[in-house]
């Protein structure tokens, strides 16, 4: 037996094949964010501030969160589909174990969102030449994005738990995802206390301040998505922000798993 024979790994391989063979899925999770990135680049890429950075250098962090946040929809649809098709019940009649099912899903979703981030990085930094402080900051930003992506998966599992059909899971997750992205100020600046309750704000703000502003973990976070006019420091450091992202991820993932178990064990 090798690592590849592991049940969770086999489930994740199956999930990845499933994703990569659905063109609709690839369109929504890869092509759409790329299209938005290019569109925003042409809209905001020419407005330089005194430091020489463009509006899009600041806005790109939100684009990445937008791309990765689609994990909410992916997970919701995947789990709802298994539930509705009877595959979940069928897996329950095998010595698979729910532990391996969730672990396999988390592995596949993490790998897929890493692929999404890498593609976004290639488009943003290698092709469009966006500004970043240094490769280390970019790597830390990458890790923060992965952690945030897993919270999106947790949210998706929660939605799948309460959705009776795949269609409901699809629609419900789209609404939740859009609300999270817009109310967190990820795509457009949104100055409101609401943003502090939403994980994309924290992930986006950390990414922005680390990779574009060159801030360290002991610096304070800002209230605004576009650092500049109107942006105020808040009394939470980047470390604190990172812990909040981790807390959201742990809470959403655990809640998702517990809710799914509760709703699908009879």
């Amino acid at each position, binding site marked *: 037996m090798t690592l590849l024979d592991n049940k969770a790994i086999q489930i994740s391989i199956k999930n990845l094949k499933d994703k990569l063979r*659905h063109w609709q899925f690839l369109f929504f999770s890869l092509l759409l964010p790329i299209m938005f990135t290019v569109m925003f680049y042409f809209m905001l890429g020419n407005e330089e501030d005194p430091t020489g950075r463009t509006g899009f250098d600041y806005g790109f962090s939100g684009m990445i969160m937008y791309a990765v946040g689609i994990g909410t929809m992916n997970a919701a649809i995947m789990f709802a589909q298994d539930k509705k098709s*009877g595959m979940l019940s*069928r897996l*329950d*009649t095998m010595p*698979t174990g729910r532990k391996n099912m969730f672990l396999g899903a988390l592995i596949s979703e993490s790998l897929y969102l890493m692929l999404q981030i890498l593609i976004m990085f290639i488009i943003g930094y290698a092709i469009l030449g966006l500004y970043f402080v240094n490769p280390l900051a970019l790597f830390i930003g990458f890790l923060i994005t992965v952690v945030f992506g897993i919270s999106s998966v947790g949210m998706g599992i929660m939605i799948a738990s309460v959705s009776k059909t795949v269609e409901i899971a699809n629609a419900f997750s789209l609404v939740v995802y859009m609300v999270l992205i817009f109310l967190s100020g990820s795509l457009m600046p949104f100055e409101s206390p609401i943003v502090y309750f939403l994980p994309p704000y924290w992930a986006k703000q950390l990414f922005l301040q680390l990779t574009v502003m060159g801030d360290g973990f002991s610096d304070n976070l800002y209230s605004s998505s576009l650092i500049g006019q109107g942006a105020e420091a808040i009394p939470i450091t980047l470390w604190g922000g990172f812990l909040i992202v981790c807390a959201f991820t742990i809470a959403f993932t655990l809640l998702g798993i517990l809710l799914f178990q509760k709703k699908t064990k009879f």
Partner: protein
Amino acid sequence: MSEIEDSVMIEIKDLKKHFREVNAVDGVSIKIKKGELFSILGPNGAGKTTLVRMLTTVLTPTSGDAIIKGHSILKGKDEIVKIIGVCPQEITIYEVLRAEENVEFVASMHGISRKEAREKAKKLLEKFGIAGRKDWSKNFSGGMQRRLNLAMALVFDPEILFLDEPTAGLDPQARRLVWDFIQDLKKEDITIILMTHDMVEADSLSDRVAILDQGKVIALGTPTELKEKYGSDNVLEVSFFEQDDLEIAKKNLEQISFATNWKEISRKERNILLISFQGGLKILVQILQQGIINNINEVENMKFRQNSLEDVFLNLTGRRLRD
């Protein structure tokens, strides 16, 4: 492990499942022997699927228990799922995986190495006539998908196989293929529990049959026992060109001891005599030997309609299986 008789593979003890006001399974108790092909026959909504979902540990019973190879479905789920193969009623395959990928995936869930899984999947799919397909399973015909559904349940050589309506929606040729395959499995000493509402399927394949209606077992025995106990008489249908020939046959029947009853009917301007009798083909031959067609000019047609499990169900419930 509970102490049960060696030959008993599954012992269902007063199993009940209630959904709010509905008693889906209402006190079922059955013993199923090792290597037996046991059918649970009943109309849609009789509780067959609920029963199989409890036996396969997916659904928790409201009360009662079932012991599967010494393990309780309430406490021994981890052991039970290692020895059971389940072919659900719905086609549950991964549509964008190829046939062999689906089968290999199930094998991997049973801890079979990838190399062994590949070999097993190849053999099994060849047997089912779906080997070598390189397209995704969603492009398969309904019959092929159903065969794949069944192959997925068999890849790890289960000791007990649950088949929930395995031939539903199949064309006659594909149905025959699945039946042949089930009969082959019987030779391998696998205990098979077949849920079906197809009386021909239950009759021709099963060692024993339990008839389930409204969550209760209303009859249990071999198909022959059930037909003898609850069924109607067998019927020999003879049609004649001439009414005179029919009258001669009626006179002949008075001398034939095996015929229990007969009646004359007219269908599409034909003169038909329906002769009822108890017993199987042997009795039929004896009726013919005793000279039912002596002195008759010509017989247009002769049909033998055997007493079926459909008759058993009809006589027990007053309804047809497909009602």
